[in-house]
């Protein structure tokens, strides 16, 4: 079963806390947050580090590559089929996303993927992922 790509996900609604993330997304860059105090990276990005509560957090450009932590292909209902997944970025954090543009039946945990931004009608693009060569 392949991605029919007919699905039109809703546009995200940025807030002041994450506006830089969406501005970078519009330029094709995936940002994460890294804490200058404890050194840990996190996603989704917060102003205050969820690990040590420091306010000294900084945006960091991710290479946009990682591996599938888990994936489930929705086979029924509106917009099916589509693949919901967590991708663990090479920088550390895992992020909830969709895997697109591929044979859904060939997806597997541990597979290498790279970010592929999907444009939306009324807002910034969405950080989805697609498989890359092992």
């Amino acid at each position, binding site marked *: 079963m392949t991605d029919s790509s007919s*699905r039109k*996900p*809703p*546009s*995200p*609604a*940025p*807030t002041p806390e*994450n506006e830089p993330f*969406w501005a970078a997304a519009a330029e094709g860059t995936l940002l994460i947050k890294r804490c200058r105090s404890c050194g*840990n*990276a*996190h*996603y*989704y990005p*917060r102003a205050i580090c*969820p*690990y040590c509560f420091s306010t000294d957090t900084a945006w960091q450009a991710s290479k946009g590559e990682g591996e599938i*932590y*888990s*994936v*489930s*292909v*929705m*086979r*029924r*209902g509106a*917009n099916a089929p*589509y693949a*919901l*997944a*967590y991708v*663990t970025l090479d920088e*550390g*954090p*895992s*992020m*909830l*996303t*969709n895997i697109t543009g591929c044979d859904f039946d060939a997806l597997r*945990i*541990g597979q290498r993927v790279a970010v592929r931004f999907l444009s*939306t009608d009324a807002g910034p693009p*969405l950080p989805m992922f697609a498989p890359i060569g092992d």
Partner: protein
Amino acid sequence: MQQVPLWKLGMTIRDRAYIAGAFEHPTRHAPDKSTPQLHAECAAGALADSGLSLSDVDGYFCAGDAPGFGGMSMIDYLGLNVRHVDSTETGGSSYILHVSHAAQAIAAGKCSVALITLAGRPRSEPFGRTPGTAPEAPFESWCGVTTHNSYGMCAARHSHEYGTRPEQLAWIKVAASTHAQHNPHAMLRDLVTVEDVLASPMISDPLRRLDCCVVSDGGGALLVVAPEVAKSLDRPLVSVRGAGEAVKGPMGGRNLDLTTSAAARSGPAAFEEAGVSPSDIKYASIYDSFTITVLIQLEDLGFCAKGEGGRFVADGNLISGAGRLPFNTDGGGLCNNHPTNRGGITKVIEAVRQLRGEAHPAVQVANCDLALATGIGGSLGTRHGAATLILERQ
């Protein structure tokens, strides 16, 4: 900061409160009723079960299914005059948690007869939450998260790490259907086999239709009361012996672990307060939104080791009279009822039936004096709340 558990200081809910009333609405489809009406019918049912009256109620507990604003509309609608109100929301596990909160309030002298209600009509009116202003919404609202694919990711990861097989998950449904045969109110009363589960349509990998709970209109209510109230009534004494609660989410995505739930914290807290261990439990109500929900909770509660859940549930081990751990003898959410997409209250209700000896004779556990009710609400793959109760017949 090292915290001394409060029960070690003599502060505990153990035996400070009793469940004196329990009622499960018989409807599974209610196009002819309003949701507040169902709440009221459930409240009336629990009061009749206990022998108490509306004017005895001085505490009210509800969650997100209750129409209106944090209990205020329902308190007015029902005609209650309460001195304690609590609308803690942890999805379908809320009502298990409410029993603990009610026991806490009773132990603190804040009320003596606490009413908990749940009701809703997902088959009869539009249902669903909007992500709204949740902090994760900009990053997740477009991902198409449903309960099916959220729990599907957990099942897929559990299979990847521990080799859990679809036919092992299917045994959970088989056990539920074995029990549901005897429940005249159950939505699905036909006995199913492992092969039936594996032949049902794939919904979201690896979960098939028969791995999923039913969608039902309906509701339930509980009355949690002070010891002196319980002992004045002509009902078996079911005490609250221990409780625990926890909330878990991806927490910034570091060391993500979809194979362990918040029950790994709520369960041990409940066992510690109760002073018992999993091997002491005669009957367990285990929240069964999906088969995988049951399997992960069994591991997290310590009924088996992490990764051993597939082997534990296989071959009918959850079937009353046949297996080591009788579970969900009403048929559970998988076959009987999952009112308003929230199964927590029916978990407590069937545990009370077992402890009273009022379960169907075909599924009644002999000498059932210690039972557990546990639940996962919200979305196991993203954010969820767990609550665990240990109940004892005295």
